[in-house]
């Protein structure tokens, strides 16, 4: 401390010191400003034969999706095992991409494809290079198209429905209202997502497609409804395993849940998976290809492996998530799972009015801020 005082009490050394700090600080700020770009567009790479590509794919994936059975055909064909990096959510992946993080393939929800495209980060697939593409659910592939180009190979999907303890609540209502009703007071669990506001909108009677692009008044109405009904919450879950645990223990009677919750709990406690009468919000995910990737053909081979029917059979049986391939052998899957999730007719199950698929939301910021205010009000 005394030495610092000695420096600053000497006018000459004080000037030198402050000048040095200022130069360092300004350099840092200027260096950061230089990266203030709207587009991380990579230069277009020429497409070469596959044996001339580097070959080591970098796949930015969800944790657990690096398991080899998801791309078995790719490995069986003799290609080098990809390098994986992991994302926690697509927002984080977008931020890293905007900051220059390089990958060949990533796995976003269909609602974020436009964000990647706005950054210039992705290029359309050549579906003729994907042998399994004709077998994929066309309803899902439409979600991956922008301006007629296939930017995402939609591969896995699921519902954002409700898992219900049928020994605690009557499943007859078949509605998102379970997430808000006073009947479940103290035993309701929401996921940490603005989709809760959309589900409130469905309960309040807003047209399902409109819930993706509500007016400011509608958004405010749904927000206030969530704030009012927040008193009925047990918690807002972040880790799905914790939610499963709470449902199993009876702390939670109704929870926002994906299909894997039903697969995990159905043999342990009396539960039902609700696909609400208002229409189920459903998410679709798939693979997108980096613009300018050096591994163009390897990327297509990887996507083709993911699209195989055998992958779908195991994906459904393991996690309860749907797979896009319509040739999946349903006889290998638990009939109960097939019936509950409508896998015997996935095109109809994923079409309106049964389901409303995720899409780009131009007002995502407004929804996020509304959701933040809901949480802050609890």
């Amino acid at each position, binding site marked *: 401390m005394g030495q610092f005082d000695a420096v600053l009490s000497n006018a000459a050394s004080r000037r030198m010191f402050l000048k040095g*700090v200022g130069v360092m600080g300004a350099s840092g*700020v200027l260096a950061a*400003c230089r990266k203030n770009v709207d587009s991380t567009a990579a230069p277009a790479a020429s497409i070469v034969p596959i044996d001339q590509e580097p070959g080591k794919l970098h796949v930015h994936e969800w944790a657990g999706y690096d398991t080899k059975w998801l791309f078995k055909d790719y490995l069986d064909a003799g290609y080098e095992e990809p390098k994986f990096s992991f994302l926690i959510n697509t*927002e984080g992946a977008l931020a890293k991409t905007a900051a220059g993080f390089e990958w060949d393939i990533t796995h976003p929800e269909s609602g974020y494809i436009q964000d990647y495209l706005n950054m210039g980060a992705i290029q359309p697939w050549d579906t003729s290079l994907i042998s399994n593409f004709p077998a994929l659910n066309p309803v899902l592939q439409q979600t991956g198209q922008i301006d007629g180009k296939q930017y995402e190979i939609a591969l896995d999907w699921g519902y954002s429905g409700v898992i219900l303890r049928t020994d605690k609540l009557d499943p007859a209502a078949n509605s998102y209202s379970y997430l808000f009703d006073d009947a479940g007071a103290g035993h309701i669990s929401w996921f940490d997502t603005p989709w809760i506001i959309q589900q409130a909108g469905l309960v309040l009677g807003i047209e399902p497609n409109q819930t993706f692009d509500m007016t400011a008044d509608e958004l405010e109405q749904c927000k206030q409804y969530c704030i009012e009904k927040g008193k009925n919450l047990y918690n807002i879950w972040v880790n799905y395993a914790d939610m499963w645990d709470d449902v199993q223990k009876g702390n939670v009677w109704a929870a926002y849940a994906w299909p894997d919750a039903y697969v995990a709990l159905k043999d342990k406690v009396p539960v039902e998976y609700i696909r609400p009468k208002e229409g189920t919000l459903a998410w679709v995910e798939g693979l997108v290809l980096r613009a300018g990737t050096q591994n163009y053909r390897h990327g297509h081979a990887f996507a083709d492996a993911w699209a195989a029917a055998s992958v779908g059979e195991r994906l459904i049986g393991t996690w309860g998530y749907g797979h896009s391939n319509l040739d999946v052998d349903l006889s290998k899957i638990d009939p109960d799972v097939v019936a509950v999730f409508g896998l015997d007719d996935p095109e109809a199950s994923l079409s309106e009015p049964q389901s409303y698929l995720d899409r780009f939301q131009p007002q995502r910021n407004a929804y996020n801020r509304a959701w933040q205010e809901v949480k802050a009000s609890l």
Partner: protein
Amino acid sequence: MAIEANVERAAPRKGRLRRGNAKVNLGLLSVPVLWLVVFFLIPVVLVGLYSVGVLTLISYDQYLSLQPWRDFLGSSIYLGSPLGRGLFWKSMKMSLGVSITCVFLAYPVAYMLALVAGRRKYTLLLIIIVPFLTSYLLRVLAWRVILNPQGVLQEGLRSAGLMNPDQTISWMYNSIFAVYLVLAYVWVPFVALPIFVSLESLDLHMLEASSDLGASRWTTFRRVTLPMSMPGVIAAFVFVFIPTIGEYVTPQIVGGKGGLMFGNVIQSSFAQSFDWQLGSAMSMFLIFVVAILLAIFGRYLNVRAVAE
């Protein structure tokens, strides 16, 4: 005369000696200062620039706009309407309560260590800081095992017949109480240290003199020990108050819906909502508040005395 001449010869040539020392001091200070600039000052400036749209990252960030600040400051939920009832004030009250609780719990421990324990004080001090050797996250998660409805505590009460099998104590977990309890538990050892240092540096002759002058032990504590240890107490209070204002890990793990704090909204803005501009505005607001508080506390805090 000879003495005066000797004094004149002995007097250091201050100007030349101080210039030499200043260069050495600058050299020694350069690494920590560089560290502060690179890992503190620049990031804070970047966050500030991001909050007003000078920097943008994604296509729907608003370039050169105060809208994120307007959205934050105008929200009745974060700062409250009327002022004082929003999430920020809830967090401030929580931090204040935790800090005061920690100081009250830690002071007797520090007093015992500094003035009573004698030769065993450093051994006992080591025992007190042993929890720091474990992961912060593990210590918080351990409280989940203790407090949750099927946890050690509530199952114990059921086993003892003090609760019905179907009964749960809802306020004990996923609640503001749980956040309060866990934060106090985590920070008490940390708070004890500066108070211990302050008490250990007391001039014990002052205590003897007080006793010799007829003061009781309570009077000696109240009028001599406590005032002289106050810099350490204030330092301890500040050391826990400032970081707990922005705390988000503990509320996320044990707080449930009711234990959400201001730090959680900032974390959520960056990590989940992808609303970096609002998160940046809230972060800068928190930094401004902390800076003001430090300036206020600094008037009462003799840092040099605590450091020495």
